[in-house]
């Protein structure tokens, strides 16, 4: 079964191919955000991993993604390969950009993979709308 990536806050969803990185899958559908070298060297594409599991099949330099960051749930999408459904959240200062057919192509592939299932409400909660209790 295809693993599905959800990008918060706007809830863009698309499937990843086996072994494909988060960033490669997003780019394949024309989804873009603020990234850098796309080769694990600069850390510009780092994002918050909200839920799900990722593996790093290529070596990641400690200077780019530290163990502490990793433990805090920061991921490096140009190197991270989803092994479950994954929810990530863009930085509040950034926004997701779309290609002319991004959502249409993603929806077609989600349908083909029989993954048009509605994501859980908790997955799509906006970053600007975190319950007060979670902030304390």
């Amino acid at each position, binding site marked *: 079964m295809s693993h599905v990536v959800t990008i918060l806050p706007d809830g863009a969803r698309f499937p990843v191919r086996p072994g494909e990185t988060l960033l490669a899958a997003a780019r394949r559908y024309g989804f873009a955000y603020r990234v850098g070298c*796309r*080769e694990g*060297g600069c850390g510009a594409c780092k994002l918050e991993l909200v839920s799900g599991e990722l593996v790093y099949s290529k070596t990641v330099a400690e200077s780019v993604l530290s163990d502490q960051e990793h433990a805090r749930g920061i991921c490096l999408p140009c190197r991270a390969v989803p092994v479950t459904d994954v929810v990530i959240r863009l930085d509040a200062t950034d926004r997701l950009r779309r290609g002319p057919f991004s959502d249409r192509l993603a929806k077609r592939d989600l349908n083909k993979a029989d993954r048009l299932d509605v994501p859980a409400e908790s997955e799509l909660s906006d970053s600007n709308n975190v319950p007060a209790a979670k902030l304390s």
Partner: protein
Amino acid sequence: MAVMRLGYLHARVTNLAEAKRHYVNTLGMQVVLEQDNRLYLKCWDEWDHHSLMLEEGGVGLIKLGYKVAKAEDLAYFEQKIEAFGVRTTRMSAGENLAVGEGIRFTMPSGHLMELYHEMEFTNTAVGLVNPPLFPRHLVGVGVPRLDHCLLKTDDIPLAERFCIEALDFKPAERLVSELGDTGELMGTWLFCQHKTHDIAFVAGEQGRIHHWAYKLENWDAIRHAGAILSMDDTSVGFGPDIHGLSRGDTIYFFDPAGNRNEVFAGGYETYQDFPTVTWTADEIPRAVSYIGREIAENHFTVDT
């Protein structure tokens, strides 16, 4: 008398096999030696032993080696660098593979630099007698020579002053916030002999590198390089375009560890009496990207 040229650059890569694929198959450098976790490479039109050393583990610049013309130049620069207030240490022959004795110091910009006079001569790929124009079976881009590097520093005026006063570089072009006394120096591109530039600095974090560049023959070679980069799915940062600053034809791209490379063509020759060109910040789009006049948002923020 100035230093002569950028002779070697040592950098870190996260995976040596992937780096080899990029620098050999895509760029067309030749493997000189593979030793433990190190890879020594050279370009086809370079006559010294190597110009690039890649070491597995991490990412980013280790050090730069600039060659001087005469053995006695080492003592000359040692004195000038010390007089500037930067400590130097002597480097003995063989500390770097195939490199003779020299001096080592950390520039005020935080980058480790070595000056040396000798490196083992191993000849170009076309030889020195009735040479063909280029090797018959070049691989990929077929880069002929390492050319220059652009470094980051949080004190551009100091980095520039060091290069001018201690190493006898001259600024070919400078980027300022505005003309006049209140203008802030935001970048400087310096030459030591006749190149468009041999070393450059832009504002950023101490000790980091923006890119190192290979000099190609002309715009057609840049076009060919772009085709190879796409075929090999190399991550391209910016270009092809023309730099207003330097009149260079360019493409920027990243190696598999995220170090940025450039292929550069065109430019112009410089001389001891070359008058410094100034760019003002409002013209940065043309300075960097003369045709598109749009700079990739990560072009100046991403480095290693």
